[in-house]
């Protein structure tokens, strides 16, 4: 059996893993709590989006907490292993002393020995997620309610019973700007998890030449450790990053869909509003107002139907979106169960 090991490299990599854990990973956990777990403004037609957003945040934080614990275990085991190698070397040295060599005392020798791995490892992945800029997307809706319909709503309501203002305001409590904000937050998480993945892989590249024993498929500790890093931890963080990326795309898709629908609603409402004002003027200028009253009622009723239909469409889309996120979380959890390793490294406890 051939063996080459420099315990300082094991300790160096352990430090790097701890730096990833206490630096990059801790930063991402805090970022997720601060920015992705903020569902302010998701009311009205966007209410169904709350639950899946909460589930996705919880899923991500659970994974990150599991990763935190697992990385502690990795670093501890590396240090422990380095200590075992040191003690074995010390024991061998002591044994050789008994055969007559007048070497320096073991303790002096080891204490004086500078770390051979100094500077070879990184100080952890550099992660500084940028807080998303929250931009409320309710400007158009509020302009529609207050500007377009606001001043004639009282008359319309008194005549026809339809409260267009209140109906439009239902859209004003669901701010799809928040969905976009959360999505951008997950985009930052994606980059952060990928950075950790890269950093772990690079650290393993540094360690590998300094810790070899046996050949391929020998089941040696060095081989087992490398496999754990390359086949479980690196893909695990990559998959987590990809999950965040998929979620960001989902958030963006929902926000775009909402914006598209509201944009159409604004266009159509402006069309009806002009017609309604025109007929209202006729109602006030004609001696025989009866011939315009039917048209007025019809226009208001049609606009009302458009608003009701829009609310229904948005609700349906949000529910559909909710189902998508549930599907995604279920799939991720399924992967977690199926594949030993990969996600299992993030399992807590």
């Amino acid at each position: 059996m051939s063996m080459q090991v420099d315990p300082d490299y094991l300790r160096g990599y352990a430090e790097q893993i701890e730096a990833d854990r206490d630096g990059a990973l801790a930063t991402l956990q805090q970022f997720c709590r601060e920015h992705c777990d903020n569902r302010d403004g998701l009311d009205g037609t966007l209410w169904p989006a709350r639950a899946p957003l909460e589930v996705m945040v919880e899923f991500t934080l659970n994974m990150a907490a599991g990763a935190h614990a697992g990385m502690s275990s990795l670093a501890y085991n590396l240090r422990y292993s380095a200590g075992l190698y040191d003690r074995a070397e010390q024991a061998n040295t002591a044994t050789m002393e008994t055969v007559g060599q007048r070497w320096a005392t073991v303790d002096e020798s080891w204490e004086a020995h500078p770390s051979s791995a100094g500077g070879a490892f990184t100080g952890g992945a550099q992660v500084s997620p940028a807080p998303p800029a929250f931009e409320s997307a309710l400007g158009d809706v509020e302009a529609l309610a207050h500007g377009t319909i606001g001043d004639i709503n009282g008359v319309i309501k008194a005549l026809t019973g339809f409260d267009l203002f209140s109906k439009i305001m239902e859209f004003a409590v669901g701010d799809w700007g928040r969905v976009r904000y959360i999505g951008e937050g997950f985009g930052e998480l994606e980059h952060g998890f990928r950075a950790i993945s890269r950093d772990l892989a690079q650290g393993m590249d540094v360690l590998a030449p300094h810790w070899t024993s046996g050949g391929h498929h020998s089941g040696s500790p060095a081989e087992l450790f490398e496999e754990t890093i390359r086949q479980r931890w690196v893909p695990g963080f990559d998959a987590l990053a990809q999950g965040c990326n998929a979620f960001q795309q989902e958030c963006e898709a929902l926000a775009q869909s909402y914006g598209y629908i509201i944009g159409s609603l604004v266009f159509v409402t402006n069309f009806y509003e002009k017609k309604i004002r025109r007929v209202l003027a006729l109602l006030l200028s004609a001696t025989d107002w009866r011939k315009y009253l039917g048209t007025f009622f019809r226009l208001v009723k049609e606009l009302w139907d458009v608003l009701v239909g829009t609310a229904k469409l948005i609700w349906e889309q949000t529910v559909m979106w909710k189902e998508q996120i549930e599907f995604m979380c279920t799939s991720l959890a399924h992967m977690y169960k199926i594949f030993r390793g990969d996600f299992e490294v993030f399992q807590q406890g």
Partner: protein
Amino acid sequence: MSGMSEILGIMGEIEHRLRGRRDAMQQAAVEWRHQLHARIEAYDREPDDDGDDDAVPADAPPEYRAVRDKIARGELTWAEVLSGQTDDPDGRKVHVWTDARMQQMRDYLRSPEGRRMVGEPE
């Protein structure tokens, strides 16, 4: 089989299915928009109600014409007159008249003839 390639394969499958659903959502929104536009176009094809904007209703107060001119100049709006929320003396006088006219309209809409007109059960 395990590792990155398999995980990425599954993530790819998830993304594929999500993309399919996203397309369905988008399609629903596009169809809805087309329906709205079709309705608007149908409306535009109908002849306008050619009311006479310059007319003065027979029962209108003398201030009516002045108010109408102020509205045309952007000094007042019908909404202000209708709500009575104006300091304009002419506007306030016409408001009393519009209030009465609105009441007539409400009464008419509640009558069997009015309900029939708007398609509600009598």
